[in-house]
């Protein structure tokens, strides 16, 4: 089910990046230092431009240049247009600058005469006022079109609605139509362009400001307390898409990771069916359940069908259906679960999960219990 190649956790090697080699240019002590300067600037710009375009967009799982959903694609098309226009402007002005620097540099012999004193030219100044105005008009019209198309898109009747609630430092997802509550890993169905089934997110915050950003699926939108926002996406490829909170929200802003699983309609229906089941009650782990229900766990966490109905932390009813814990900070393994319960600082320093300080036997029992929550 998990596409391990795209997973951010397993894939630790940073390839692709090795292609940017910034070559060291030996600075010759030439009279023409300015030319050297321009060369190195140009070289850097070129190396960076090509690095960005070629090397990275294919290997980075969060590149804004590999859109997989309509809003991201619309933005991508607009960005190519804007890049083209700004690129032309850059080329023109850059050439003018380089030309004037090279052409009008003072000779080695000190000139005894001042150059012709020119105070301005109305025609030329008018020209470089009007041409930019025309460019601005074109850019604005292109932008407004995409802006309207993405932001004001009507929600079709068959759209999946999800309420995403930002918390310090994790994500809560509620599917009001489907009666599903989960955390940190968003499941949505793939959308067939012929019969789109987009997902519309209603964005809320329980505390500070956050921002939902999965670059391949859509631009980011903030989650602000008492200020509901909306965004949508219609991914056209299945797989795992990653991103992270983009609006600084406190100490562990960096490890408030996003993980979106785009499923086939069948897989999605199956996932929904499983999520709607009450928590498994396995007699063999009753001791662990007892630990859970008699400690502070229940202040913050919910497990459907038990006494636990806290809302400060993630719903754990189907904890084991998730690949990661701590909002993506660690893989969901028994060892990590135990570490997270006993010493969360080791995984995510400054998170709001307290160290539970359980005895070894209680911790063992609790982890065994959590392991059954499929």
């Amino acid at each position, binding site marked *: 089910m998990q596409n391990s190649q795209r997973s*951010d956790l397993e894939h630790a090697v*940073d390839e692709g*990046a*090795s292609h*940017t080699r*910034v070559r060291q240019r030996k600075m010759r002590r030439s009279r023409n*230092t300015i030319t050297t300067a321009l060369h*190195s600037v140009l070289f850097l710009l070129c190396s960076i431009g090509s690095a*960005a375009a070629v090397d990275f*967009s294919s290997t980075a*799982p*969060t*590149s*804004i240049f590999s859109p997989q959903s309509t809003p*991201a694609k619309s*933005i991508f098309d*607009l*960005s190519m247009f*804007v*890049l083209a226009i*700004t690129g032309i402007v*850059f080329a023109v*002005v850059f050439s003018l*600058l380089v030309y*004037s620097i090279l052409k*009008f*540099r003072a000779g080695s012999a000190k000139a005894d005469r*001042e*150059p*012709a*004193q*020119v*105070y301005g*030219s109305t025609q030329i*100044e008018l020209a470089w*006022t009007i041409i930019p105005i025309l460019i601005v008009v074109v850019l*604005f019209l292109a*932008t407004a079109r*995409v*802006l309207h198309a*993405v*932001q004001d898109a009507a929600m079709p009747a068959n759209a999946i609605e999800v309420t995403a609630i930002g918390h310090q430092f994790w994500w809560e997802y509620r599917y009001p139509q489907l009666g599903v509550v989960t955390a940190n890993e968003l499941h949505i169905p793939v959308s067939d362009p012929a019969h789109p089934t987009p997902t519309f997110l209603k964005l809320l915050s329980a*505390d500070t*400001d956050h*921002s939902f950003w999965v670059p391949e699926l*859509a*631009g*980011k*939108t903030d989650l*602000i*307390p*008492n*200020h509901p926002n909306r965004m949508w996406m219609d991914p056209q490829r299945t797989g795992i898409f990653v991103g992270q909170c*983009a609006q*600084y929200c*406190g*100490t562990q*802003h960096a*490890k408030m990771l996003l993980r979106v699983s785009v499923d086939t309609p069948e897989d999605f229906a199956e996932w929904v069916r499983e999520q709607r089941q009450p928590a498994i009650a396995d007699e063999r782990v009753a001791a662990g359940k007892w630990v859970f229900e008699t400690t502070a766990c229940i202040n913050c966490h919910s497990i459907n069908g038990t006494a636990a109905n806290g809302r400060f932390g993630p719903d754990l009813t189907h904890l084991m259906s998730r690949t990661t814990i701590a909002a993506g900070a660690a893989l969901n393994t028994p060892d990590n679960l135990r570490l997270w319960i006993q010493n969360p600082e080791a995984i995510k*320093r400054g998170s709001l999960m307290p160290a539970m300080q359980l005895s070894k036997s209680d911790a063992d029992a609790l982890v065994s219990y959590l392991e059954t929550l499929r």
Partner: protein
Amino acid sequence: MSSNAITIPDLDAEAKPWVDVLHEWITTVDHKRLGLLYIGYALVFLLMGGSEALIIRIQLMHSHNEFVSPQVFNRMFTMHGTTMIFFVAMPILFGFGNYLVPLMIGARDMAFPRLNAFSFWLSAFGGLLLYFSFLGGPGLYGAGSAPDVGWWSYAPLGARAFSPGHSSDYWTLSLLVSGFGSIGTAINIVATILCLRCPGMKLNRMPLLAWLNLVMAGMVLIAITPLSAAQIMLLIDRYLGGHFFDAQAGGSAVLWMHFFWIFGHPEVYVLIIPCFAFMSEIIPVFSRKPIFGYPVMVAATICIAFVSLSVWAHHMFTVGMNSYANSFFTITTMVVGVPTGIKIFNWIGTMWGGRIQFKTPMLFSIGFLFQFLIAGLTGIMMAAAPFDWQLSLSYFVVAHFHYVIVGGILFALFAAFYYWYPKMTGRMLGERLGKLHFWLFLIGFHLTFDVMHVPGLLGMPRRIYTYEPGRGWDTLNFIVSIGAFIQAIGILVFVWNLIISYFRGDRAGNDPWDAWTLEWSTSSPPAAYNFATLPVVASRRPLWDLKHPEDPDSQYE
């Protein structure tokens, strides 16, 4: 016109006891000394803010680095941003303005010398308050020390629930106090320029530096006020049970954002307009031509000032404004590009047909032109609201505004240092060290901030203390960090140059650059009264007229 006709007895012949010197500097109301105090104070904070940047860059050198804790990292970027904007860029530009404006308009001092001193000491006290938070921040709560809420302190992160202790209070008070200082200085600059110009200096004969400082000071009056208001509201929220920004009680987090950016965006122009001013003085002198299109340069500046007051919410394209608001802020932001473009073209027009001398001030000015061009174009990209939904809050934005602030403002400031240091001290800054500084800093700058755009495009958000491997960000961040250290070496060369040249630099004389504005007509450094007799001017370039009596500017204006 006069070149310091009176010879005064050398009062400094006997070295004064250091307490007397200290007393003189602390009690001074001389605009030149206050200018130097501003500059020196800003340089100290530059080193502090720079050290914080280096800590940030060491931490981000590779993924899952544990050089500092998340708490410390968050304090570092908060302090870095606050320091660099409020206690480096603002005071250093006020310092140059204070020093140069009276000299360039032929005045003997600022209009309100004692207000000037008061404003400086308010700003200085603000900086101390901010850094005192390292000691006083925990308060009785044992909470974190320095503020860690980002330099925007977005609500509700700045509320007591999320920022316990006093760290946010020190942040708030320091900005409030230094904000009053800024308002005082701005009033002073406006009054000085409007009332103290020497005979003959009509508004349309003022050097562009004076014009642009006038516009900048006007913007300070408009921009700082909402910031101060917001800080007072935040204090009321934190201590008097107010709910301005408390979303749980019907307040609005978005309200804070509006207040902050109504200040924050004009602030960018408050910082860049004086740098435009430096360019408009330095590029003509080293191109040996007058500024191309003086009236248009003034008009473009005023146009930028007005339009920039209506662009603030382009910082808020992701907060969920409706599409009409987003469209409005898209068009206003793009429109700012037009007068800014005019400026760049006019600077090129100034160089065109000139005889360009590549002294260190001009090298930094050329760097400014290239970098400001790129910064403007990336700004246009982010003005396109949908594109900004991807770029905003990412390292692309961080790279963009550092291109403006370092590539633009800091390069212009370096140019200004090399250009006016001879006037301020009587000694030239070393040209060889200057060139070394330029090349080191240029290479470091491009290594850092060109490359920094890319992780943003690859989805790296700003303000994260660490990042996951496998996202293609590691190598890029490593290069960025290397560049930061090269810049740091460049800065050290600069500081060394400032110190060594003060003692061993070549004597500058009154007019080392063969320049045309009034400050070069008096001694270096100028006497306390600036001009023995007030100059009388007949054109925008009084010293040109003096040096070329056969072909004075006054014929053509």
